[in-house]
């Protein structure tokens, strides 16, 4: 079953296409990572799917409801956390959650229970009676997640939920998102690849308003796996980089650090050539080889390859 479906969803601002014919399908119960660089069209997509803005062309469905800005029944089924959640600073955290619960027409007894449950979940019990104006950014983000969950949404939209957080805040928010797995469909936009890699099952990569690829992360890794080699030597192997860079079948060579150890990461244009020639080059270098591995690329490798090239793969 699909929780989200877009058909040719397009949004123009004057002559600029913020989103250009998005076709997308998100399976029910998945955590979908919507990746893209800044200005790629992620927030526009989220706002379109939550009915906050109207498309120039195309149609979309969320939780079996066609998107319309005036659709009250759609808004009963979704939760939304904007990139920078805003609150009424004069309210306390609990007051805001109750207010959102009332907007969803929940019975007062359920509102109270749900507020307690969510405040505990986002670790804001101790600050629930404090004015939101005094909350830190991380606390506001966690309250934002809590308010988006009050109605037990079928589909939860999170727009860059971790972008403004420090590492501790980010870890907390990601762990909350992980706990939502199987409870609902989560559509999470982000430009932080490691966050998406950590919590999402499926990713869509968007660049300049167009969807470049959409696939489960593991499938994506396998699709791009054949071309990345990692080499580790006992001695300093930096001189080998310039030698490898000169070869026509090599797309990219870089020295990276893995657990503090220097590793040569090589991305091949032609894997057959690499399989034939790389062992020979290593042998002739006279260096002591500690590790030779054809690796799964990180999401970052795939992202840079796709977004950098700007083409469909």
């Amino acid at each position, binding site marked *: 079953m699909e929780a989200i479906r877009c058909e040719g969803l397009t949004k123009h601002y004057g002559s600029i296409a913020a989103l250009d014919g998005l076709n997308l399908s998100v399976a029910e119960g998945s955590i979908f990572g919507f990746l893209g660089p800044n200005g790629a069209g992620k927030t526009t997509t989220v706002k379109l799917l939550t009915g906050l803005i109207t498309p120039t062309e195309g149609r979309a469905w969320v939780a079996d409801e066609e998107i319309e800005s005036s659709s009250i029944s759609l*808004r009963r089924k979704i939760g939304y956390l904007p990139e*920078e959640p805003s609150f*009424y600073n004069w309210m306390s955290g609990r007051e805001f959650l109750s207010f959102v619960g009332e907007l*969803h027409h929940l019975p007062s007894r359920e509102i109270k229970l749900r507020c307690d449950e969510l405040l505990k979940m986002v670790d804001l019990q101790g600050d629930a009676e404090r004015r939101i104006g005094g909350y830190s950014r991380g606390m506001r983000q966690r309250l934002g997640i809590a308010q988006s969950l009050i109605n037990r949404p079928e589909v939860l939209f999170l727009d860059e939920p971790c972008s403004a957080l420090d590492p501790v805040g980010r870890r907390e928010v990601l762990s909350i998102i992980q706990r939502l797995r199987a409870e609902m469909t989560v559509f999470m936009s982000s430009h932080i690849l490691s966050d998406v890699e950590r919590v999402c099952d499926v990713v869509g990569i968007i660049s300049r308003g167009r969807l470049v690829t959409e696939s489960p992360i593991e499938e994506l890794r396998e699709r791009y796996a054949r071309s990345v080699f990692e080499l580790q030597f006992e001695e300093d192997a930096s001189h080998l980089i310039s030698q490898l860079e000169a070869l026509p079948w090599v797309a990219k060579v870089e020295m990276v650090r893995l657990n503090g150890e220097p590793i040569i990461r090589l991305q091949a244009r032609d894997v057959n050539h690499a399989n034939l020639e790389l062992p020979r080059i290593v042998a002739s270098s006279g260096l002591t080889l500690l590790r030779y591995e054809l690796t799964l690329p990180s999401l970052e490798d795939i992202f840079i390859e796709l977004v950098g090239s700007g083409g469909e793969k």
Partner: protein
Amino acid sequence: MTGLSVLIKKELKEQLKTYKLFIVTGIFLLFGIVSPLTFYFLPEFVPEEVVAMLPAFTVMDVVKEYVEMLSFMGMLAVILISMGAIATERDCGTAAMVLCKPVGRGSFIVAKLVGLSLTTIVALALAGLVCYGYTSFLFGEVNGWAFLALHLLLGLFFVTCLAVILLCSSLVKNELAAGGMALVAIIGGAIVSGIPAIGDYTPNRLVSWGTELVAGPAPSAWWAVAVSLGVIVVCLFLSWFVLQRKEL
């Protein structure tokens, strides 16, 4: 009007917790107290030769001064507390947070008007009571029913202006721009009300009708009441129409 009652409750709470109710009430009360006291004590603050030249102040002098202060300085206060009602919420993102919930955009606007109108009406009622008390005590009998009618008409005038302010606030994201637009619209309305053929049909006629009623029997201006109600409905509709098309 989905979510209207919840939003009205929130607006009323906001008026209390952000002290808007107390600020407007304080300002209006000041006018209610200052107007009668100024006229009563003025002879004591000016030289005797000037006192001899001063006319004997009457209830109507006090009422006219009170109404003038309310409709100018009071109106400024009302513009200041309401100009950001929609503009600021759109700009800072709280409108998006609320309107992605099962809430109609019409409810969002109507709740704002109700909250701000109640603040203004409470302030007006208290200022009226105080002004009535002081004026009756210091200057003699004041027609209570006429004074009540004046305040009902003033209340309608303020609510009409609030609807105009909300429309301006829904048009732009900047509260100062919204306030400026509203001020221009209200001043424009006052200028138009000075045109003899049109004046009787404008909301500003409510104020002069109310003042005339305190003085004694006065020609009615029910058309001004109808036009004011029409302006409120049209402004609410236009605000909804604009907000429906605005990107949040």
